[in-house]
């Protein structure tokens, strides 16, 4: 049970122009799974390396339960890694791989054997102690890597895109397994990923990283529905942004006309946004309706993606699959329900 705190971490790699981490602060509660989400090259993996002691920060502190770990030797920090590749030691059997950390800590052979068997049960691969890593599939290797990391009961588990190289069914299966095991053992976990679905499915909280710092951190459903700024909104899939002036419950935009909004006390220039799933399409006029013409309709199985031309712009709406597919050129009303319009600037 460990709380991990980052305070004002900064890190610039030699020869790089810009810092990868710039005043990065975040607190991960004990037993919580927090994912760091952001485009590649944003310093997510660097952060894990700082915790593990592979890299050193230029400034700032990393605390485990309030105590700085930066002066502790990397092999004494009890923060374990799981990478994209399993990195099982190819010259050891599965059992010996899992027992590696126990052997280092001086557990007796009987204890090692017992704990290895326990872990293999936990990861759902009982009885494979004597197999060689190269006899296992990619998903199995990752499970064994997880077992090897968790058998020493680390303070923190660091997951660096561990599911990336796996096929989709294996990936989903492993995501669920890792999440369940993490909950069961209550290990504080930091997951680095660029996959929004993965982050949402696994995390207690998601931290969106932009420009070397945390742009937003919250529960997945809140960040997904109500991203606090334009960059984060774009990252979670919002495409429709409306610039205009708000005054007492009305929002006037040069391009979109007049819309009703929920926050009545907002006045002045603002940008509002709406998720593509929240846009409604119908024939009849009502509040916040705009007249448009269907440009294209793409059937995606779970939903229908409809592109509608509104004056000079094209708007994309994701409609439930039960809607009918409309032919191009069909005039429709686009509804932007006021309860779904949220401010991003």
């Amino acid at each position, binding site marked *: 049970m460990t709380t991990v705190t980052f305070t004002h971490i900064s890190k610039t790699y030699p020869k790089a122009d810009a810092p990868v981490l710039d005043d990065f602060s975040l607190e991960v509660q004990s037993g919580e799974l927090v994912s760091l989400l952001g485009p590649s090259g944003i310093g997510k993996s660097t952060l894990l390396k700082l915790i*593990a*002691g*592979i890299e050193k920060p230029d400034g700032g502190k990393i605390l485990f339960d309030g105590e700085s770990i930066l002066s502790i030797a*990397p*092999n*004494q*920090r*009890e*923060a*374990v*890694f799981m*990478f994209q*590749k*399993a*990195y099982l*030691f*190819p*010259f050891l059997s599965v059992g010996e791989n899992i027992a*590696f*950390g126990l052997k*280092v*800590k001086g557990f007796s052979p009987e204890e090692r054997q017992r704990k290895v068997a326990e872990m293999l049960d936990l990861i759902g691969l009982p009885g494979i102690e004597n197999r060689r890593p*190269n006899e296992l599939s*990619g998903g199995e*290797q990752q499970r064994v890597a997880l077992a*090897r*990391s968790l058998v*020493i009961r*680390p303070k923190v588990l660091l997951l660096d895109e561990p599911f990336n*190289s796996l096929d989709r069914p294996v990936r989903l299966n492993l995501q669920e397994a890792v999440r369940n095991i993490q909950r069961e053992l209550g290990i504080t976990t930091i997951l680095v990923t660029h996959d929004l679905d993965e982050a949402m499915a696994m995390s207690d909280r998601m931290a969106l990283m932009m420009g070397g710092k945390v742009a937003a951190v919250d529960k997945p459903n809140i960040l997904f529905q109500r991203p606090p700024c334009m960059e984060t909104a774009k990252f979670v899939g919002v495409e429709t942004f409306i610039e205009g002036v708000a005054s007492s419950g009305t929002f006037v935009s040069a391009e979109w006309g007049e819309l009703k909004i929920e926050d009545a006390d907002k006045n002045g220039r603002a940008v509002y946004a709406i998720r593509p799933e929240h846009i409604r399409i119908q024939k009849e006029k009502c509040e916040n309706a705009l007249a448009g013409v269907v440009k294209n309709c793409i059937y995606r199985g779970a939903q229908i993606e409809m592109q509608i031309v509104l004056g000079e712009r094209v708007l994309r709406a994701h409609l439930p699959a039960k809607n009918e597919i409309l032919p191009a050129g069909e005039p429709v009303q686009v509804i932007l329900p006021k309860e779904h319009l949220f401010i991003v600037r």
Partner: protein
Amino acid sequence: MKKLLIWIALLAPLLTLGLFALSKGWFYPEPFPAQLTPEAFSRLISDTRTLKAIIDSLLLAVLVSLLSLIIGYPAARAIGTQDFPAKKYVWLAIFLPTVVPPLAIGMGMSILALQTGLSGTPFGIILAHIVPTLPYTVFTLAGVFARYDENYEYQALALGASPTRIFFAITLHLLAPGLAVAGLFAFLISWSQYLLTLLVGGGRVLTLPVLLFSAVSGGNPTTISALSLLFLAPPVLIIAATARFLGENPNSVHERI
């Protein structure tokens, strides 16, 4: 057919050597020796000077290989895994001994050995042999390190292993094939080293190549052939064993999911 030709090309010189070594009184125009006898071998093996030369050469080559690996490892690791300023010039400095004519290096080293009192000592010879072996060990190991994934070591580190433990329990195992090849290079270069042994040894250290050269100037084909075969045997055996070992343990460093 092509395979047969290759085998003939490979084996014909060896067979000729063998025939010469076993012959007695083989004169022109006889197509085959009048008498086959292992006399030359038994004479060589019962000769303490030859035996000592074989043992000394083996010891020397093994020591030189080990030292080359130990000295070359850090350099190769830095060159293979890291980027640092002036890397090119470091490469050049390491490679210089292979570019400069051996005689030029040899004369210089001979003088240096005389001045420092290392001339004719085993330690002096070992140092002299490391000069030509080191570039090859560094070169081979740098190639291995360029493909080496340090994440294996980070995993061990995160699991609590100390750097020393990581080196012996993880790194050495992962690098074993590469180390074997690099060590083999050093062994072969040291084993066949004549000039440096002669110049720095001052004629007081007799290795197999030195004996072979003096036998060649002696001009007895039977002795020369027998000595040559003795000279060939250890490298051939070692290469065969290494090839077998590498075949059984394909370089684990390239292993991917």
